[in-house]
């Protein structure tokens, strides 16, 4: 099964590995357009019991779920949104390519998320998703100008029914 995310609308100025940059103070119209054209698709992945157990262990859960416990952890879907980027392309200070930001020396931080679970994710579900820019804000922060990118991520199940929607915030200083 293909496990790499598919990215469209991403050119080298938005590729963190390429180090392209946004204007220091704000987004240009071209930068804004590039971001809004991004579409990242996450191929179908099964939420297996092993995946859930690994996530449980990483969270520090000491006990094992019983076979009757099929509800997956709330944020288990986040395991599906990290592209398996080749090591040579990883940037030491960036942690979520290709949505890691514009590069160019600007600092990108995670600003939290909101997730609505239309139905619970359960072991055995097969989920696939799409992430795109929902909105972009520019504002003055305590330490200078900020760009806040809101990313909307949606996952559907094998029947194409919407399972969850996530709105996450990315702050670019």
């Amino acid at each position, binding site marked *: 099964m293909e496990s790499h995310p598919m990215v469209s609308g991403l050119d080298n100025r938005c590729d963190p590995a390429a180090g392209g940059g946004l204007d220091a103070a704000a987004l240009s119209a071209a930068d804004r357009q590039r971001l809004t054209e991004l579409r990242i698709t996450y191929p179908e992945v099964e939420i297996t019991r092993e995946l859930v157990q690994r996530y449980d262990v990483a969270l520090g859960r000491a006990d094992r779920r019983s076979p009757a416990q099929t*509800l997956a952890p709330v944020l288990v879907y*986040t395991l599906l949104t990290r592209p398996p980027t080749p090591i040579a392309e990883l940037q030491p200070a960036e942690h979520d390519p290709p949505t890691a930001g514009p590069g160019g020396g600007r600092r990108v931080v995670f600003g939290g998320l909101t997730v609505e679970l239309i139905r619970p994710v359960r072991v055995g579900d097969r989920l696939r998703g799409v992430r795109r820019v929902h909105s972009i804000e520019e504002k003055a922060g305590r330490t200078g100008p900020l760009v806040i990118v809101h990313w909307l991520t949606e996952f559907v199940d094998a029947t194409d029914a919407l399972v969850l929607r996530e709105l996450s915030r990315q702050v670019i200083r």
Partner: protein
Amino acid sequence: VTAGPPRPPAVGAQFTSHHLPDERQLFLFSAVTWNAHRIHYDRAWARHEGHPDLLVHGTLQGGWLAQLAASIAEPWGRVSRFEFRNLAPAYVNQELVATATVTEVEGERVHVSLELRGPQGPVTTGSATLTPDPLTSNPLTPDPLTSNPLTSDALTSGRQTSTPLTPARDGDEGSDA
């Protein structure tokens, strides 16, 4: 994580969980989430970025809050909405305490506020909405020993609701976590 009640909790009920993340846990969480950011496993790099020690992942902190919310709901329901926001860095080998407080009971929905505190104060805040899970085997009846305004009628439906997602409030500049 404190075991959740067999029935929906009343307003004001509190639940806590304690966490002491060490280097191994940060490594495992980086691995399972495919997170190569060096501030979580390379102490020298973390210091290079201006931190005194390895940072606890923001999503690990969020995961703990979600886990606590789920533990409250698990006997009778599930988490239908969850949000969190990192306020300040949290560092390896520091104890973090997650607290969930039931703030409102609205029909069949229970609203919970969430906070993770470190030695210096809150590091992550959030909230969750808990709703009955139609697949749970437990009866969805409120605890008669509390003043919970829930009613049995309100809780026996497995109706799922969907509300628009809205961006978090302004003023947050994010966290390196």
